């Protein structure tokens, strides 16, 4: 069974690689390369897979999940400029893919175990664009 909880944060970022020219950054990242940065209301959906506990009837106590998401996502990310204030984005471009990957790495050790595991992270950058990350599985043909 898969359970999903949503969490939101608002943050600013800029997508540009300092090793590339302005023109290259513009070609790859478009308006997101504006060096002064811009922001989004991000929506994150965290999905955990497991069997319901026979006593509690729950895959995971949602109070516990809420506290983990607050601590691991909202506290570090909310109302921050990701490039300047949230590692690893001092070294990595904060694309939606990289944000999904970082959230996965923050959450996996907190959620795996006791018969359940992190199943998927979905990050909406805007209502028109989202990324799903399913862990380090090989890309299937």
């Amino acid at each position: 069974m898969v359970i999903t909880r949503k969490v939101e944060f608002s943050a600013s970022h800029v997508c540009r690689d300092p090793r590339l020219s302005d023109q290259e950054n513009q070609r790859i990242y478009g308006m997101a390369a504006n060096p002064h940065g811009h922001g989004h209301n991000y929506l994150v959906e965290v999905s955990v897979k497991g069997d319901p506990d026979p006593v509690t009837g729950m895959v995971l106590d949602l109070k516990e999940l809420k506290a983990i998401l607050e601590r691991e996502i909202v506290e570090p990310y909310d109302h921050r400029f990701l490039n300047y204030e949230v590692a690893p984005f001092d070294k990595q471009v904060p694309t939606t893919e990289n944000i999904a990957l970082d959230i996965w790495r923050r959450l996996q050790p907190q959620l795996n175990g006791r018969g359940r595991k992190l199943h998927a992270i979905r990050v909406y950058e805007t209502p028109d664009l989202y990324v799903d990350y399913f862990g380090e599985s090989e890309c299937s043909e």
Partner: protein
Amino acid sequence: MFRVTRRYAFAASHRLHSDALSAEENRELYGKCNNPYGHGHNYLVDVSVRGPRDAATGQTVEIAVLDELVRREVLTPFEHRNLNREVPEFAGVVPTSENLGVEICRRLKRKWGQAFPGPWPKLDKICIGETPRNIFEVKADEIE
């Protein structure tokens, strides 16, 4: 593995009517959707792409390239059109959202290699929202 989904929209009219059925059978099967003058929808098209993340750019797909492909192959030919009369593939095929999903998939797959010459990303699926309550999902691998 990453899957990136981009949402697009267009407005179009259509009529559900099969030449293989009688007028009465069409009315019974398609109901209001068989209205001879047609009707329209604000269609949503979610295009999902899968692949690894390029370590240098942090991206699975160049969104600008995907946007241009979808604009050229789908949005421009479908926007504010009568699908039955103005999209040649629907001359003999009923423009249900199932068939619309298949047609959009075919159009994108046909030009995919030009837009994305490498092994990745691949087209994963198309999801059509005909109305907010009717959703149709087509896996790209299942379409010729």
